[in-house]
């Protein structure tokens, strides 16, 4: 059974008088444990697709099933619950709460999940160690480099024990070396924890890491290769 199942999804945005078909009749199944990349030129619908898979945006047509949950049957509050417990997010930028330190940012999701205080701190530190930030627990985001910030974001996405992590161009703001390091961390997490990663990218290097590459063009799937 796929962990993500997108069936006939369409999304139309209204831009003034013009209707923009951001996604046209998308079918996409992703198996548990995948490390999948969604690639395509700017405006091809990568962000839109990830948002819909993450329950941040609703499709105009079609069906989305994540972790056996049918989005169409769920209300906003149930979707929030699902995101909190089953989906991790890493965005291109502005991932962290600026007034919280690295360890507090990671803890915050667990607070929302209702994890015990002592447990929170322990798990947050452990996961920051895993992404190589043992020295930076108490630094605020403004005191971290872009790559370190993204690593905190990955740590936060993974700490809640999600079924999938959705990352929208996580390396776009990083230089290639830092980007590759981040990708390696994500690949390790994927392997060690068997968490499904779906990320979008422009970057050939990032695509090379992916075990599966879905190519979008004008809101349609142009190519889908499993390596």
């Amino acid at each position: 059974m796929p962990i993500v199942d997108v069936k006939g999804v369409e999304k139309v945005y209204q831009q003034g008088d013009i209707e923009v078909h951001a996604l046209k009749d998308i079918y996409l199944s992703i198996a548990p444990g995948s490390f999948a990349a969604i690639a395509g030129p700017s405006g091809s619908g990568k962000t839109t697709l990830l948002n819909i898979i993450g329950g941040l945006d609703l499709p105009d047509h079609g069906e989305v099933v994540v972790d056996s949950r049918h989005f169409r049957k769920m209300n906003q509050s149930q979707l929030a619950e699902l995101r909190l417990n089953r989906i991790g997010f890493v965005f291109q930028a502005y991932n962290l709460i600026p007034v919280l330190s690295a360890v507090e940012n990671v803890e915050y999701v667990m607070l929302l999940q209702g994890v015990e205080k002592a447990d929170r701190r322990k798990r947050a530190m452990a996961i920051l160690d895993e992404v190589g930030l043992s020295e930076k627990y108490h630094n605020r985001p403004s005191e971290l480099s872009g790559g370190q910030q993204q690593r905190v974001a990955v740590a936060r996405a993974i700490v809640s024990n999600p079924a999938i992590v959705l990352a929208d161009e996580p390396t776009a703001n990083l230089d290639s070396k830092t980007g590759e390091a981040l990708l390696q961390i994500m690949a390790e997490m994927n392997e060690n924890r068997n968490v499904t990663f779906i990320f979008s990218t422009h970057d050939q290097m990032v695509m090379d890491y992916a075990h599966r590459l879905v190519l979008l063009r004008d809101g349609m799937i142009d190519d889908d290769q499993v390596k």
Partner: protein
Amino acid sequence: MELQLAWRNIWRNPRRTVIIMIAVIIGVWTMVALTSLMRGIVNDMLENGISTLTGDIKLYASGYHNDPSIEYRIDDPNSVISKIAKTLPVDSKYAARVRVNAIASNARHSIGLTLVGIDPDQEKGVSFIGNGVVDGRMISEDDNNAIVIGQALLEKFETRIGRKLILMSQNSQNEIVSKAFKIVGVFRAKLASTEKQFVFVNKHSAQKMLGIGNGISEISVVINDHGKFEQTSQGIAEILKDSDIEVHTWKDLLPMLTAYMEIFNGFIVLWYLVVFVAMAFGIVNTMLMAVFERMREFGLLKALGMKPMLILRSVLIESGIILIMGAIAGNLLAFGSVMMIAATGIDLSALSSGFEYVGMSSVIYPEIFLKDVFLANVVVLILGLAVSTYPAVKASRITPVEAMAHT
């Protein structure tokens, strides 16, 4: 962690927080300080009114209230007093008086005023005359010809202590009687009009002059805890319901004062409203700005799975902290400034002597009532939180997709 986060968020933009706090401080400060000033004025008017021979409760023979003539009198005051004594709260005081309209004259002047026959000891703590005289001496039990008059009357009559004053009135047979008294003392009252209105003689000499035996015109009762006057007057009325005596409270004896107090109360509410509306605009505007500035963050929190109610709550916690800090500072300022003013009082005599007309002293001592402080704080905190729900709801409705588009 929630409080910690709220605290840090508050200080992200200290200037904005300080602006909201100043609005709250000024709001609470002016609410509490001005209310206590008004309470001072109203209480002063009430004290003046009650001590100007009114009392909390007053007993008359039926008819006297409409036609204050010596014809209507309580002939046996002692039996009335012994009947009601039990219903009075422990430390209440009373005074029985003879009171008639009279004309006072000397060689140069004459004026209509009120002749009051008193027992000087009874008046202590009941009316202003119980405080004694500023010049000369007080009338005593067996002073048959002595009279005490007000400073203002003394000046108007161009007379002095030791001189005579002729009092003319109607006796119980409706005959004109007159008697010469010797001025033995001069009293002062807060209001010049009171000094001109009343002259005091020994109760027995008034009774003799008017031919009324032991009769008196009124019994004035003062209760230590003014708040109990209504209940006590009902108790007295119940006891005296078969006798020929009317029971009145200051509320119906001083209708002007009652009206002023209501106006003041209305004004206080209006003032709260004005201050609050001004403050509310400040709070809503600044909080909205803060929320829109942090749109990306709220979008992120939503994406992470934070429910709208929690986001709403976190914004309310932030404004709650600002409101509480502002309210504390506002209260401190208010208490401080009121205490400073209360030490010396505010002298309004320079402004106008017209204050006297409404029965107000020229020096006002503000009084803080906890009830008012409580009300001001509740208004600020509860309504402050209520208006903060608007920006808070806005924050809770931000969607991640919107937030991401808003870079």
